[in-house]
């Protein structure tokens, strides 16, 4: 192993941000902390993106590893102990200085600190704790901090750290215990879920405290998140959605992040993925996740044993609507908010607007267009005062044929030609629903 002792902060930053980039979470949302007038920073509940990287992902936090030294050998990880890469570590002071320097210049919302496992989990967690402790108490930093909890560290230090940071996360890494055994031999499902449960319970307790005593310290006020790698092991989308749903339900996670597997190591146990990371699949999972969190969909509505994977060509909501034509058309001037949400082309914002505007009189298609409904897709599923926009047939094939819009803004080209379309029975390309 190559350990560089004399390295500038700049060189360390290059190595340790490079090593941290596979962690997808970069949000700074969910915390609302006012500045107390004695330090620097605050937290905006909606989160703030200060820039966007070349891969189009938002840059909101200084995302770094404390060290890329690691005693473990997770097959998929660039920092695994068997890899021959340059290793280095920050000191807590270096991280504090970088964070403050970046924050003052309005580059970032705060710090996302993760780490390889140096010596042992407890030792590593101590270092992470020391860093955030200094940031909060020496530098009086009041911006956002997202800290990784290292599984295997003792409960007490995780507890203490939780009171200093906004969000904590423990990575599930792989969706199944089997996958974990195969690709992360030093980790176990049990070990990962234990701190997750601890954080959940502590956060719950602290919420009650804060409700009672306004000034009680808050434990991870922005909640807990996790991430899993998509496409390194053989799970179906149905299984993934199921795992995510139970994480939301049983561990009350704020977010589950999906990370399309990136092939960085040559290893016989890893898939080759000649087409690059499975970005489209990741995209569909985020869409489904969105539907579950904000649209009131349940996982089993979107996928089933018989239909275990998302339609590549069709976003999950459209796909669902076409399989449930009996629920349509929906009358715009009467349907309740949640029913409106189920219409392709109507998102949360336009649903609110419809509910608000119709108080002043009934709405027609012209109004809907102004309100921001994507009529191109919605028109097959709605009526205004009992009338459809054009004479249409409520028939899946017909809708698919007419709705064809080859310009869905996908993160990647689906790599499928229209001749192949017939392979998918109800396929078409819709517009990205998440932004509607």
């Amino acid at each position, binding site marked *: 192993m190559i350990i560089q002792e004399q390295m500038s*902060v700049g060189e360390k930053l290059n190595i340790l941000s490079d090593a941290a980039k596979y962690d997808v979470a970069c949000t700074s949302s969910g915390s609302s902390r006012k500045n107390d007038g004695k330090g620097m920073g605050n937290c905006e509940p909606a989160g*703030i993106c200060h820039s*966007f990287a070349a891969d189009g992902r938002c840059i909101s936090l200084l995302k770094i590893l404390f060290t890329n030294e690691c005693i473990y050998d997770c097959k998929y990880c660039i920092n695994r102990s068997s890899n021959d890469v340059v290793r280095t570590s920050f000191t807590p002071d270096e991280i504090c200085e970088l964070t403050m320097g*970046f924050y*003052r210049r309005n580059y970032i919302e705060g710090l996302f600190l993760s780490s390889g496992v140096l010596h042992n989990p407890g030792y590593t967690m101590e270092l992470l704790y020391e860093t955030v402790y200094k940031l909060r108490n020496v530098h009086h930093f009041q911006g956002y901090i997202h800290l990784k909890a290292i599984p295997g560290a003792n409960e007490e230090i995780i507890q203490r750290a939780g009171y200093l940071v906004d969000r904590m996360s423990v990575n599930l890494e792989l969706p199944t215990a089997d996958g974990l055994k195969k690709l992360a031999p030093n980790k176990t499902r049990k070990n990962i879920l234990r701190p997750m449960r601890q954080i959940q319970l502590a956060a719950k307790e602290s919420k009650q405290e804060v409700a009672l005593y306004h000034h009680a310290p808050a434990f991870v006020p922005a909640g807990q998140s996790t991430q899993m790698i998509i496409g390194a092991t053989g799970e179906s989308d149905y299984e993934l959605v199921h795992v995510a749903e139970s994480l939301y339900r049983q561990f009350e996670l704020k977010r589950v992040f999906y990370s399309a597997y990136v092939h960085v190591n040559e290893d016989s146990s890893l898939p080759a993925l000649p087409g690059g990371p499975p970005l489209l699949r990741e995209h569909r999972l985020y869409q489904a996740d969105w539907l579950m969190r904000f649209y009131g969909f349940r996982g089993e509505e979107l996928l089933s044993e018989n239909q275990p994977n998302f339609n590549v060509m069709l976003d999950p909501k459209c796909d669902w609507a076409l399989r449930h034509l009996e629920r349509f058309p929906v009358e715009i001037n009467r349907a309740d908010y949640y029913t409106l949400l189920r219409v392709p082309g109507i998102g949360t914002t336009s649903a609110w607007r419809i509910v608000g505007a119709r108080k002043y*009189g009934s709405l027609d298609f012209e109004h809907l267009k102004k309100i921001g409904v994507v009529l191109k897709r919605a028109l097959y599923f709605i009526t205004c005062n009992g009338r459809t926009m054009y004479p249409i047939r409520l028939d899946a094939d017909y809708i698919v044929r007419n709705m064809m819009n080859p310009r869905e803004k996908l993160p990647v080209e689906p790599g499928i030609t229209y001749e192949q379309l017939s392979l998918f029975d109800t396929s078409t390309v819709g517009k990205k629903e998440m932004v509607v």
Partner: protein
Amino acid sequence: MKYVYICPDTMAGIFTGVYDAWASKVGHENVELRVKEPDDLEFFCEYITVKEDMDKAEKVRRSIQRKLGEGVYHSICYAACAYFPDRAQAIYHTLVDFFAKEGAASKRPLASGWHPGGTGSNYFENLRNPHVKRLQEIYRRVSMESYRYIEILRFKELENKVLFAVIEPEHNILQFLAPHFAERFPLERWLIYDKGRKRALGHEPGKGCALLDGADLPEHYQEYCADSQADYERLWKDFCNHIAIKERVSWARQRQMIPIKYRKYMEEFDTK
């Protein structure tokens, strides 16, 4: 006959215009409010130049706040600072339609559960009305731009420790940045400069913010930067490059998220 009220280009000016036009009783549909002299004068049109009057403006402000609530008032303030020439017109006719015609549809809170006070606090939901729709749009554009600059504005540290940022926004958003940065950096001296309008927003610890008009930017202001400034720019730029996953690079997506026109003062981008 059409009556065109030319208002001074300030919030109080527009509010005074609203007052005068309303008081003139020439019929609301015959009134047009503008903030700029038209290039060509039209026939059958009377032009009235409004003189800013704080008492009148204050009256208008109070009735908006009382009847339409803080939320709508807040949106109207943003809209009044927009760059769009039809903003005064949209404000006037929205107010007229509310006060003289449609009134409040209900006293229930907004669909979102938010009820900021005033029986007309949900009047902005009345998107069937073209003036409300337009005003809402103008408000959204201004507030989105303000938010955008909260994200992308970059401070440079000067030798005297002042944090200094230059922006070139389309709308007159400086004052909307004040609460955010005052809260965030209460112990710092900072200055944000709107280059196009030659306007500055300054902050002094313990004293709060102040707006300054007619300030000129020294041409070589970069030379006043602290020594460490260049180092931090380098570190930031390298960080931004290293944090991207090369297997996922998508310049199109990056451009979509952060259009080129905003990048001028963002050190992580090479705009030269």
